[in-house]
C-alpha cells in the first residue's frame, strides 16, 4: 500500500501535514487494450489508491465471473471494460482517473489508442505533464507507437516514459529491452522528443510497477511509480517569461481595479515592469491580491488578481507580460490544426477562435499539407476531415498577443468553434506569425470610397441575391439592374456566367470550392463597393457561414441580403436550364437542394416570395426599399 495505514492510525495530524505538500502530476497513457494499458492503470489504482472493501469485493467477484486471470484478480476490470463503454456508446472519449501516493496526487487521462480516436488522445495530452507510451515487448515499436508519439510530441508533452510491457512473456530478457529502447531512440530523435525514460515492466505480474523486480536484476532504473513520483514538472514553466491572460476585470468599487487570471508562465513580484498586449502599454505590478492576503511572489499555475501602478486600459483577453520579454502581436499565422468534427474544415470559412481568454474570428486558408499520423508523411490536402492534422495559414479579424506553442502552451494553443452549431471543431497550435501583415502597408488614398460615392450620388452596397437554382435570382437582379440604370445609378453585376467562366473557372462544386467561390466573389464585390458601385450578385450561396463572411468584410449597411424564396418543388418544376432533371438522374453531383444542402437565411434584409410576387413586382419592391433607405441619393 502506498498509503501508510500505521501513520494514519497513530499520527493523523502528521499524516495530513505531510500530504498537504504533495504535488500533482497529470499524465496520459498511450496504448491499446492489447498492450495491457487497462491492466497497468488498474494495477496502479489498486496498488496506490485506497481500494475500499466493497469495491474490492466487487472486483474479486467480477474477476471470477468475467476476468481473464483465472482465480487471480483481473486489474483491468478496475478500469471500465471496453465492452461496457461500447454499450454506453461513449467509447470515443477520455476518462479521468485519480490516485495518490505519499508523494503525489495523480490524474490519469485514459484514452482509446486507435487511429479514429486521435482527437481524444490529443484532448488527454493537452493537459498532461507526462505521457506513458506503452509497448508490447513481443511486438516492439509499431505504427501505433509512432502515432501516439507524434501526437505527444506535437502537443509538447514534456516528459515521456516508454513502458515496455509483457516482459514476462519474453523471459525478462535484457536484449529485448535494449533493442526496443534503441529503436525508439532513433524515432524519438526525428520527432524532437529529447528525453525519455524506458522502463521494462509486467503489468500483469507487477514487475517494476511499484516494486523493483527480482526477475530483471540487469535493470537499475526506477520503477514506474518511482519515476512518476519524482519527475520534475514545475521548473520549466517558472523559468519562462511572465505571462498572464486576463480573464476578468475585478472592480468591486471605484477605488479598486484589478486584473484576474491564472499565471501561464514565469513569476511576478510587485514592482516588476509589465507590458499589456496587444496595446503595448507599459506599467508596473503594484499588488498581487488574493483572499489570503497580498503576495510578494506569484508563480506559473496560480490564479491571482494583479493591480497596476498606472491607469492602463486592460480588458478580458489581453495578456499581461514581462516588459523585457513580451509576447508577439500579429493577426496572421502558420498553425498546426487537428480537426475534431465530422464536418470538414473548409478553407475560407470563418470560425470562432478562442485563445487564452480572447475570442476572435479566424479564417483558415487551404492546408499547406496534412500529415499521415502513422508515417509522418506530408500529403497534399484541400481540406481537413475528422481526426486529420494539417498545417495551414490562418488569418484573424484582429491582432492578438501570442507565443509560439512550443514556447508557451497557454498563449499558443487555441480551439476553433463552428459559428452555427457552436461545436468545438478543431484545436490548433500557433507555429509563427506571418510577416506579411506588417509588410503590406495600406496606402491611405485621397480619393476614397466616400469621394467616389459622392460623385455618383449614391450609397455603394452589395445586393446579395441568394436562393435555389431556378428560383429567379438572376431574372430579378437583371430587372433591378435595369431600373437602377434608368435612374442613372452606377451598378455592376456578378453572376455565375461571368464569374464561373473567368475568375473562378478553376473551381468546381465541392463544399471546399463553393466556399472559395463565394470568398472570391465577396472580395471582388468589396472592391467594387470601394469603387462606389451598387453591386448585384446572384449566386446560390447555399451556406450561411459564407454569406456571413461576405457581410463581415464590408461596413455595416453595405451588405443587403435578398432571399429569393422559391420552394424546391416550384424551382424544380420550372427547371429553366434542365439542371434538376440531370441532378435527379445523378448526372450532376453536389446539386443544391438535391444532393447538397441549402441553408435558408434567418434574417435577410429583403425576403422575396416568388410564389406570390412576379419578377417585375419583386424588382420594384427592392428598388423602393433602396430608395427609402437613401441608397439612391
Amino acid at each position, binding site marked *: 500500500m502506498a498509503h501508510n495505514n500505521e501513520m494514519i492510525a497513530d499520527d493523523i495530524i502528521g499524516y495530513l501535514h505531510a500530504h498537504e505538500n504533495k504535488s500533482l502530476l497529470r499524465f496520459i497513457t498511450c496504448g491499446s487494450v492489447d498492450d495491457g494499458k487497462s491492466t497497468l492503470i488498474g494495477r496502479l489504482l489498486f496498488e496506490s489508491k485506497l481500494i475500499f472493501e466493497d469495491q474490492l469485493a466487487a472486483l474479486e467477484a467480477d474477476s471470477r465471473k468475467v476476468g481473464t486471470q483465472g482465480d487471480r484478480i483481473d486489474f483491468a476490470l478496475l478500469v471500465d471494460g471496453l465492452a461496457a463503454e461500447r454499450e454506453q456508446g461513449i467509447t470515443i472519449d477520455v476518462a479521468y*482517473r485519480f490516485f*495518490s501516493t505519499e508523494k503525489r496526487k495523480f490524474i490519469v487521462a485514459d484514452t482509446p489508442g486507435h487511429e479514429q480516436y486521435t482527437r481524444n488522445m490529443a484532448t488527454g495530452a493537452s493537459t498532461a505533464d507526462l505521457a506513458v507510451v506503452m509497448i508490447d515487448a513481443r511486438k516492439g515499436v509499431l505504427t501505433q507507437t509512432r502515432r501516439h508519439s507524434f501526437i505527444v510530441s506535437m502537443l509538447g508533452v514534456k516528459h515521456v516514459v516508454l513502458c515496455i510491457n509483457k516482459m514476462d512473456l519474453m523471459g525478462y530478457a535484457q536484449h529485448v529491452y535494449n533493442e526496443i529502447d534503441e529503436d525508439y531512440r532513433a524515432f524519438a530523435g526525428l520527432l524532437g522528443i529529447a528525453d525519455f525514460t524506458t522502463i521494462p515492466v509486467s503489468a500483469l505480474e507487477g514487475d517494476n510497477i511499484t516494486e523493483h523486480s527480482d526477475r530483471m536484476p540487469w535493470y537499475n532504473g526506477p520503477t514506474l511509480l518511482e519515476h512518476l513520483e519524482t519527475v520534475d514538472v514545475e521548473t520549466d514553466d517558472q523559468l519562462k517569461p511572465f505571462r498572464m491572460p486576463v480573464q476578468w476585470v475585478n472592480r468591486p468599487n471605484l477605488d479598486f481595479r484589478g486584473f484576474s487570471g491564472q499565471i501561464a508562465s514565469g513569476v511576478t513580484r510587485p514592482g516588476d515592469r509589465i507590458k499589456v498586449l496587444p496595446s503595448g502599454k507599459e506599467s508596473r505590478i503594484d499588488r498581487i491580491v488574493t483572499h489570503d492576503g497580498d503576495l510578494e511572489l506569484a508563480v506559473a499555475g496560480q490564479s491571482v488578481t494583479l493591480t497596476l501602478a498606472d491607469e492602463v486600459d486592460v480588458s478580458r483577453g489581453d495578456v499581461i507580460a514581462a516588459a523585457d520579454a513580451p509576447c508577439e502581436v500579429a493577426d496572421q499565422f502558420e498553425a498546426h490544426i487537428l480537426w475534431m468534427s465530422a464536418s470538414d474544415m473548409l478553407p475560407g470559412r470563418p470560425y470562432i477562435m478562442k485563445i487564452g481568454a480572447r475570442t476572435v474570428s479566424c479564417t483558415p486558408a487551404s492546408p499547406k499539407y496534412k500529415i499521415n499520423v502513422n508515417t509522418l508523411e506530408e500529403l497534399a490536402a484541400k481540406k481537413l476531415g475528422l481526426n486529420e492534422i494539417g498545417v495551414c495559414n490562418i488569418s484573424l479579424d484582429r491582432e492578438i498577443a501570442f507565443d509560439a506553442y512550443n514556447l508557451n502552451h497557454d498563449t499558443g494553443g487555441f480551439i476553433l468553434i463552428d459559428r452555427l452549431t457552436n461545436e468545438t471543431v478543431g484545436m490548433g497550435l500557433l507555429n509563427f506569425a506571418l510577416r506579411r501583415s506588417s509588410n503590406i502597408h495600406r496606402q491611405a488614398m485621397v480619393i476614397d470610397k466616400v469621394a467616389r460615392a459622392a460623385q455618383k450620388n449614391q450609397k455603394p452596397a452589395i445586393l446579395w441575391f441568394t436562393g435555389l437554382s431556378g428560383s429567379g435570382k438572376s431574372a430579378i437582379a437583371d430587372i433591378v439592374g435595369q431600373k437602377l440604370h434608368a435612374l442613372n445609378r452606377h451598378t455592376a453585376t456578378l453572376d455565375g456566367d461571368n464569374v464561373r467562366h473567368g475568375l473562378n473557372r478553376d473551381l468546381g462544386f465541392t463544399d471546399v470550392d463553393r466556399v472559395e467561390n463565394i470568398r472570391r466573389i465577396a472580395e471582388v464585390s468589396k472592391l467594387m463597393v470601394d469603387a462606389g458601385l451598387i453591386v448585384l450578385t446572384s449566386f446560390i450561396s447555399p451556406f450561411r457561414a459564407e454569406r456571413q463572411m461576405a457581410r463581415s468584410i464590408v461596413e455595416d449597411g453595405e451588405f443587403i441580403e435578398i432571399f429569393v424564396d422559391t420552394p424546391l418543388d416550384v424551382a424544380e418544376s420550372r427547371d429553366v436550364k434542365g439542371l434538376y432533371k440531370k441532378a435527379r438522374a445523378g448526372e450532376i453531383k453536389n446539386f443544391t437542394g438535391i444532393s447538397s444542402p441549402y441553408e435558408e437565411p434567418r434574417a435577410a434584409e429583403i425576403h422575396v416570395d416568388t410564389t406570390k410576387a412576379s419578377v417585375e413586382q419583386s424588382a420594384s419592391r427592392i428598388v423602393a426599399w433602396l430608395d427609402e433607405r437613401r441608397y439612391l441619393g
Partner: protein
Amino acid sequence: MIHVTHLQRLEAEAIHIMREVASEAENPVMLYSVGKDSSVMLHLAKKAFFPSVPPFPLMHVDTTWKFRAMYAFRDRMAAESGMDLIVHINQEGLDQGIGPFSHGSSVHTDVMKTQGLKQALDKYKFDVAFGGARRDEEKSRAKERIFSFRNAAHRWDPKNQRPELWKIYNTRKARGESIRAFPLSNWTELDIWQYIYRENIPIPDLYFAAERAVVRRDGMLLMVDDDRYPLAPGEAAETRSVRFRTLGCWPLTGAVESTAATLPEIIQEMLLTTTSERQGRAIDHDSSASMEKKKQEGYF
C-alpha cells in the same frame, strides 16, 4: 523554484473555471446544497473574485426534508458571504404532499430535487449553474466534462460532449440550452477533506460525531430529525454516537456510528474505513435509478 502543491493546483483550476463562467455566462448561479462540497465551492468562489463579492447568487433547491441543522447553516453561510440566496421549492410537489416516507426515495427525489431544479433554472433563466460534482464519485462522472451541456429539456447527452482542450472552455450555446459547470471535477473526496482542513472551511456539525436520536431501519441508521418520522410498531429512537458522511434529505441519509468529533478524526476514519462514500445514500441503492439515468433526466 516555488513548489506548487496538488491542492494549490486544484484550487487555481477551480478559480480559473469560475472566472470563465463569470466572464462568459449571461446569468450564472451557484447551486448550493449545504454539504461539504458546496462549502468548498463557496469558499473557492470567495477566493476567485476577492475583493469583489462573487458575481452570482446561490440557489438551494429545497426538498423541505433537509436536516434542520442544514437550514440554519445555509442561512448563516449565505449571510456571511454577502451573496443573494435563492431558495426554490417545487410547489406542485409540496401541494401533492410528495415526501420520502409516503412516496419512496425515487419519486421524492425526482419530483422535489430533479423537477425542482429544472423549474428553478427555467424560472430564473439561469444559463450556467455551478455544481459540486466530482469525477471520482461514480463511473459515469469520470467522462463528464467540466462544462457539461444540457438541452432545452435539461437532458445530458453523453455521446455528444465537446472536447475540452488545455484550459480553454467553449461556453457557446444555442438559446434554451444551458451549462452545468463543475469546478471540483478533478478533486477526490480526500482532496475535499484535506482542503477543508487546510483552509478551515466551516461545514455543518452533522459531519461530526455526536449523540443523536436514531432509528435502525432497512440496515440504515436514520436520524429522527423532526416529528414527521412515522415510527413503525415496535420501533423506537435510540441515542447513539453517530455522524454523517454525506448530507441529503434526512429520511434518506444513513448515519454511521462514529466517535470522530474533529476534522483530523473524520479524515482518519475516512482513510481507514472500508466502504466507499455513497453507501450511506438510499438513493443509489434504488435499483431502478442508476446515476447515469438520473443524470440524463436532469438530476445534477
